[in-house]
């Protein structure tokens, strides 16, 4: 299970980073829409959090940007 989630984390993170770059997303505004500070957002992107809902939320927010 964990291996699968690690792979999905990498996949979803790459997708997110790509959208951030292509759409030139304002990180402060993104953090606000994620309900967290910019520092926290970096932290969540660096290491997989045990609650995967954060990445689904991030992906959803970015897809609608």
């Amino acid at each position, binding site marked *: *299970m964990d291996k*699968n*989630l690690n792979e*999905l984390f990498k*996949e*979803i993170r790459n*997708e997110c980073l790509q959208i951030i770059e292509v759409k030139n997303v304002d990180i*402060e*505004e993104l*953090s*606000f*829409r*994620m*309900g*967290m*500070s910019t520092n*926290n957002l970096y932290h969540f992107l660096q290491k997989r*959090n*045990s*609650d*995967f*809902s*954060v990445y*689904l*939320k991030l*992906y*959803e927010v970015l*897809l*609608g940007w």
Partner: protein
Amino acid sequence: MPNNYEEAYSKFINYIERQLMSVQSKLKNVEYYNIIKKMINDLSNSAKSKDYSKFMEYYNVLSRISDDVKDNLDIICYLAVHNTCDIPQMEEAIKKVFSDKSLLKMISYNESKELLEGKKEKLTSIIDGTCDFETLKNALLDSDLEDEEMIVILMHEAQKTILTSRKKLPSLEVNENEKIINSNNEIINKINILIEKYYPLVSSKPNKLVEMYKKLATPDNIDSINSMYSEKDVRVCLHILYLIKLKEERDEVLNSKPVDYQLLELNTLELLKEYELSCLAISEFEKERMENIPQETSVYFLIDPNKASFDLSDLSDEEKKTIESMIKDLESGLFDYERNKNAHTMVKQNICKDLNVFVNRKKNICISYIRVNSKVLILCFGTSRDIFDLSKSILNTNKSLINKTISNIRDNDEEFISSEEEFRNALNQSFPKEVEPHHG
């Protein structure tokens, strides 16, 4: 909440071991109290025949019951040794021994040794894994496990029981196969209703997100979608997608020739389990949806005791007006934090595990608040850059005040409500007044 079988089963066994320890301790008590009962019975007969030798014989055991029993046994033994048994002090000391509270408690202890031994046997058989399904089911229902954990264990045990009994009864194969198909159809009908009602939740999401959901839609992964965000619809979507996957597997089994009934039976069990879990997720989702229907409510502030957790004095009139209108929005029940880019749920993280903090935004002003039942407790105001850090700092430094205020809101405490009204009036005074248009 753990819902994989190993985790739930280990929790259950832990509970059974605690029960076993309690039963074993009761059994020891019963054995000890039975010895005491027999001794008291002997002493009662000896006292009637004025033979006090038994009091000396049982002295070592009985004197441990209480200091009073020991003192009175000392008197009885002393008088018996000195042949002064006929004096009133002897009778009084005997009476005091027989009426000692600790002693009476032991004598009146009425747990049945046979019943306790029966319980011990059942508990041991659960730990050994040799008990029957009924015993396990009853013990599980009496346990302190969550419903979801019970379901996981029951499904697993039911599966084992069915597979074992099927091996024993090959002659019933034809009828049994029909039964398997019937029970599979029965659960599929229920599942179709769920899918029809809740698939629109899935189809309303962007395609790329749905693709990601499909990869995640396995029972173990669904567990990793916790409560950091309050959006219960994600869990519902994942359950619906997993149900669709199970339905496809079921169709494959039914279309293969010959049909593998054992596989179909396993599929039925998996569908049953997933149906139960989906219903749980749906009920949480529906509850949340009901709570978010706009309705007028009361708004409260964090006051310690006459000072709020925010200061508006440096703000411009325009900003104060924005704050006033945001408070009015909350009072009308406009909790528009769901999927609105201007309003968001604060991530729980470590500071506020039990509290959801919400943030709404209007123009350049943000407001953070907690919802208590259907009411609102405002924490602070800020910009979108600092609102989360400000809210965290308030949560960290005012834990007891927040808890007390939440409990006052829940209890509708009169004193609290009146001090809130006073505060609110003063706050309203600080908002800029609308200038009346000048006529003439």
